[in-house]
């Protein structure tokens, strides 16, 4: 176990090293910092002196060493746009993103487990077929399109006049299919509750929750179908196994067989995939936050790109790198603990 732990940690450090080299190479090659700092009228000799003083003429390795030393201490330089330390800017935007990811994860867990289990137990039922069909449609709709459709339906509202308004049933159907658009479609609202430090939460007020709902559903929509299909596939395989047949033969109630015996082993691979996917959701927050103007890290990153705010871009890459590496490592470790059959030290087959 110790060997496995060390191996995973070494892997994590190696990955972080690669990311930091890439991030630094970006910083090194994007634009000329001297150009950003001084005006047109500064002569070349002056620029050269400044370049020398800032250490920009040192070799790549020396400069990288300095960068890495500062980065480890949490110093990524000043954001050009915000005029404050890049890490501070990220820290201010992080809670909004984490809250969004948390809400989306909650939706995914609460819906995917019951739906997945149900459609595994009754694969031929009408409802299961409906869920399977819906899930492949869900996979095919890009997350930003889901978000736009949600905005159209719930924030702007749709008026249906497909049926004749003069008849009673026509008016009723029109009314049923039309929606009032009163959900907020951008930002976090003003009714935030301060928790601690940079963290203002959306989850403690009615208005805050209303702002959170649509972005969270959009973000969840991309993962939910994947999880439903995954849970269904794993559960169906588990239900074929000998020990489930044996439990059934012993006369244990079906509910207990499904939810205690089978579900436990179903969740094993789901946890692994799930942990990795939570990291993946960071990528999708960029899209969701853009559509809903949600002031989190994703929107901040996109703004930083459009403003060529290099220190902020580099800091974002490093922080996201850390998030990915940490989640992946933790998931691997949990899997190693939970599933004793995994080959801990040997090479993966």
């Amino acid at each position, binding site marked *: 176990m110790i060997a496995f732990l060390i191996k995973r940690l070494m892997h994590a450090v190696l990955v972080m090293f690669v990311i930091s080299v890439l991030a630094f190479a970006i910083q090194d090659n994007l634009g000329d910092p001297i150009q950003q700092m001084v005006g047109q009228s500064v002569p070349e000799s002056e620029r050269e002196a400044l370049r020398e003083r800032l250490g920009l003429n040192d070799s790549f390795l020396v400069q990288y060493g300095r960068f890495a030393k500062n980065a480890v201490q949490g110093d990524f330089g000043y954001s050009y746009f915000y005029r404050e330390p890049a890490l501070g800017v990220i820290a201010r935007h992080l809670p909004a993103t984490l809250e969004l990811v948390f809400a989306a994860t909650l939706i995914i867990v609460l819906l995917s487990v019951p739906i997945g289990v149900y459609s595994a137990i009754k694969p031929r039922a009408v409802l299961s077929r409906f869920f399977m069909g819906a899930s*492949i449609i869900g996979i095919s709709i890009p997350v930003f*399109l889901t978000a736009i459709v949600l905005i159209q339906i719930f924030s702007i509202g749709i008026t249906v006049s497909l049926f004749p308004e003069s008849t009673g049933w026509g008016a009723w159907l029109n009314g049923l299919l039309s929606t009032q658009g009163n959900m907020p479609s951008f930002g976090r609202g003003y009714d935030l509750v301060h928790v601690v430090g940079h963290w203002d939460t959306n989850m403690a007020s009615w208005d805050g929750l209303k702002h959170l709902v649509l972005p969270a559903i959009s973000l969840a929509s991309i993962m939910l179908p994947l999880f439903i299909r995954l849970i269904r596939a794993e559960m169906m395989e588990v239900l074929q196994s000998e020990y489930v047949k044996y439990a059934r033969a012993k006369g244990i109630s079906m509910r207990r067989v499904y939810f205690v015996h089978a579900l436990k082993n179903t969740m094993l691979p789901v946890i692994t995939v799930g942990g990795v996917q939570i990291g993946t959701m960071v990528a999708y927050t960029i899209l969701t936050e853009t559509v809903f103007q949600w002031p989190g890290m994703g929107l901040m990153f*996109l703004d930083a790109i459009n403003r060529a705010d290099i220190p902020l*871009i580099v800091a974002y890459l490093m922080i996201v790198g850390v998030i990915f590496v940490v989640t992946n490592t933790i998931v691997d470790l949990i899997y190693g603990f939970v599933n004793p059959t995994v080959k801990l030290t040997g090479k993966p087959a």
Partner: protein
Amino acid sequence: MTMTTNKAPSRLDRFRDSFVWYSFKRDRTAQLCLAVFLCLVVAAFSAPLLAPTDPYDLRQIDIMASELPPFWIDGADEQYSLGTDAQGRDLWSIILYGTRVSLLIGFGAVILQALLGVTFGLMAGYLGGRVDAFLMRLADIQLSFSTLMVAIVVGAVVKATLGGAFYSQYAVLMLVLIIGLAEWPQYARTVRASVLAERSKEYVDAARVMGLRSKRIMFRHVLPNTLSPIFVISTVQIANAIISEAALSFLGLGMPETHPSLGSLIKAGFDYIQSGSWWITLIPGAVLVVLVLSINLLGDWLRDVMNPRLYKG
């Protein structure tokens, strides 16, 4: 095999006798999806013939005719069947051209992924040892980030380095490169897994004993036997590449609005959704969903028929 008086079955005959064709004939969903997909492809690539106007030609655009609704809504102009976008371009024409761009990038990116992934996967699986460890570690690292994340970051950095104007000019090429480079590990892993299964078989030993070079064994003997999983993931990968392209374009890292793909059409229309012009964004969106859905359903069917062990193994 010596040729006798009986002719050897042609490729077409063999295909007619195959299980793939048999199950295709019996599967309505697959037929429908293939029909829809082919319709879209044909329509998109014959866009210059089908489209009433040329959206790239500024002389044919009338800014006074902007934001006209599609034909079933009051206030529509019969000249523009699906309405017009904010710049006064005919939506039907621009969607045809946009679908062509999306398909081009999707196919291009998948071809690049397949070339890289199959080559690396074959090398990793067949040569083993250090090559294998290095390539698979690389694939692991890349896969541990989401491919979309890699694409967004690479796109952003490339755009910032080369400048927006240059990037827009070569956007198709850039997107093919970015999406292709971001997703090769999927292929490499799949190919490697099947190569490992094939490598221990006797025909490979026989070929080696005959003194064939590894390159020849890899590409002429092992590769044909790993084709069915490659086929299956290719469909899914095309769908993914089209969605990735749309996502990048939506973020402003893809096709420029003067030369839009479906993704940049959706992005351009989104700015006008609050003013009630939903058709500019939702009609291209619907086309995108139908395109991706038909590919995904075909992929599902193909996976059931060919039944490769994609996930376990």
